């Protein structure tokens, strides 16, 4: 494992120094063992779900986490909220290290961090009424006397009819269910909300309603979001800063507009170019599409050296041959180094602004 030269530097990408982060993640790693045998379980391999990830989330901002399926986005979210235990590394919340906290110690902290999930169908108990679902945090944490009144205020705020307090979730549409999930997350007035693909299951017209709701809630309650999505358009719309993950690692992090306008890590560049462009672009800023060859390698057996080198167009451009990549790419994982002020990319040969990458892909 390569050492990150200045973890705090990379983590702070795009922010002023001296500001105190709400969440601080350092060298976070999670392996899931693959076992064989029923009684005597032997470990025969490991899924490298999250590998040496460091970043900060500052108060009031939205940090977007993008990547393809299996890149470790959701595992990272679950590690931060301590729904699963990390293999190594630390997570600090509001200045307190929570990695070693017991369940009891976590309870007051759970008030401050809540989650919104992707699937509004399976994340709500079908046998409970909306009142019970949204009111559950108060019952568990014993913080509120007049639960019903408070729940109805919340329902009103997220755009649900408070008179539907006694209805069951199956009586609502997908978008309304997602509003229920949001009301539940807001109940305890948390500081951090981790949104794990909150709009992926929704139709576009409803998706826009929910995105606008999340934005207005952020302004009203001074919320901090960790926003996970595989949809790059959505992430750009909501995020102040964005981190790109590939095979369990953060390969690039920086302010949203910088990162989208000028990706420096070849994977980020390829990912952005792969998004269907839609309309309304008049040539300027429209990139030539870089179609990556092959598939994402298995996280059980990640490639040696830079995890992206087997598919990297930049490495082939540097070597000048399609079947060859520079030795450094094959042998050593590049650290997340500063390539621009506030921009960090894990690459030995970062993409230069304006450099066309599609030539490499076609070489």
């Amino acid at each position, binding site marked *: 494992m390569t050492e990150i030269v200045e973890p705090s530097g990379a983590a702070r990408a795009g922010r002023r120094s001296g500001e105190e982060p709400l969440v601080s993640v350092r060298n976070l790693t999670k392996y899931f063992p693959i076992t064989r045998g029923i009684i005597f379980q032997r470990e025969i391999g490991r899924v490298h779900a999250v590998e040496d990830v460091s970043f900060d989330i500052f108060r009031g901002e939205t940090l977007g986490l993008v990547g*393809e*399926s299996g890149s470790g986005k959701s595992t990272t979210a679950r590690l931060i909220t301590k729904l699963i235990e990390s293999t190594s590394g630390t997570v600090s919340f509001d200045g307190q290290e929570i990695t070693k906290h017991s369940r009891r110690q976590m309870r007051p902290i759970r008030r401050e961090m809540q989650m919104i999930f992707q699937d509004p169908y399976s994340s709500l108990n079908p046998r409970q009424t909306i009142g019970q679902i949204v009111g559950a945090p108060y019952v568990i944490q014993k913080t509120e006397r007049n639960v019903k009144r408070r729940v109805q205020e919340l329902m009103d705020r997220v755009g649900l009819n408070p008179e539907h307090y006694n209805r069951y979730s199956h009586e609502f*549409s997908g*978008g*309304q269910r997602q509003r229920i999930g949001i009301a539940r997350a807001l109940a305890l007035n948390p500081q951090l909300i981790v949104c794990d693909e909150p709009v992926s299951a929704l*139709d*576009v*017209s*409803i*998706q*826009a*309603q929910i*995105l*606008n709701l999340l934005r207005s809630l952020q302004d009203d309650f001074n919320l901090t979001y960790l926003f996970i999505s*595989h*949809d*790059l*358009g*959505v992430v*750009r*719309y909501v995020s102040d800063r964005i981190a790109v993950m590939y095979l369990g690692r953060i390969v690039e992090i920086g302010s949203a*507009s910088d990162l*989208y306008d000028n990706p420096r890590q070849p994977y980020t560049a*390829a*990912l*952005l*170019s*792969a*998004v*269907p*462009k*839609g*309309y*309304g*672009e008049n040539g300027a*800023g*429209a990139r030539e*599409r870089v*179609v*990556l060859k092959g*598939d*994402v390698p298995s996280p059980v057996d990640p490639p040696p050296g830079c995890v992206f080198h087997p598919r990297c167009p930049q490495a082939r451009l540097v070597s000048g041959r399609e079947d060859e990549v520079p030795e450094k790419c094959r042998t050593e994982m590049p650290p997340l180094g500063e390539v621009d002020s506030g921009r960090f990319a894990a690459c030995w040969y970062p993409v230069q602004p304006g450099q066309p990458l599609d030539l490499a892909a076609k070489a």
Partner: protein
Amino acid sequence: MAPERGFQGETLLDVRDLKVHFPTPDGVVKAVDGLSFTVHRGETFGIVGESGSGKSVTNLTALGLVNRKAAQIEGEVLFKGRDLLKLTPGELRHVRGKELAMIFQDPFASLHPMYRVGDQLIEAVKVHSNVSKKQAEERVLELLGAVGIPRPRERFRDYPHQFSGGMRQRAMIAMALTHNPDILIADEPTTALDVTVQAQILELIDHVKREFDIGVILITHDLGVIADVSQTVMVMYAGRAMELAPKDELFRKPLHPYTWGLLDSMPRIAQKGTRLLPIEGAPPSLINVPPGCAFHPRCPHRFQPCDRERPAFADRGGGHPEACHLTIEDKRRLWAERDARRLGVAV
């Protein structure tokens, strides 16, 4: 009704006033309610709409995959001059999978998990042509190569779980191409895939269209995908066509308020500082489709006749057919206003 615009290729599919209604204990579900369009050779015809807008039912009906006993089907689906709705199941079987091929959203569910991929493809070859197993195998290897599966001879013996999502979709495309079809219907072919793989598959579909000189019907909810690969786009809502236009016209000069709403709901990566203007409310239940224009309860520009009179699907002077009562002048003005609002400029 449907426009004949510019496409030189022969008309492959001509759908005329198609209605597909499902009687249920709760009422009649009007899944498709009066739909007309044509697809030509060499054309990628995109159908876009939200879930429940009737995109998939339209094509399942064309393929004869909707149970005719459970549904009331009216209208005509002319495929190279023959009405598919009048064919017997036996006759349809000779067309389906041979001249009309389909690929589905979920490549995980479309391959049998316990048979080798190669054997499943051989089966597809042998269904419609009387060839030896050896010949069928040769054909399959050729197809697997054509869709970009590396080392087809080795992968031929793999089981579906050994394939990634993108490779499975490639295998499905190979299967669809077995008998040189005239039309390939792709129902959300990339929805289950990651963006980088989606880009590969879209490129492949486009390549296949040119190479095999076929027509493609691409069904999706993703306007970005539509904008990338189709030449003609039909926007559907509540089982009806709202607007049908060449791609550039649809994206640059859309005429229907629902199309406007869709375009303004979609966050795009290349535009910063724009605001999303969502459509209020939710799509209607197909049992209780609103009277008049189906979109009127959610439409910010509704006026007098909208709640009573269903607007005809016709060209009102905008250059392509759409179903909205507004005059063409109003449409142009309102779209310009929305353009400004989205960019945060005062009008």
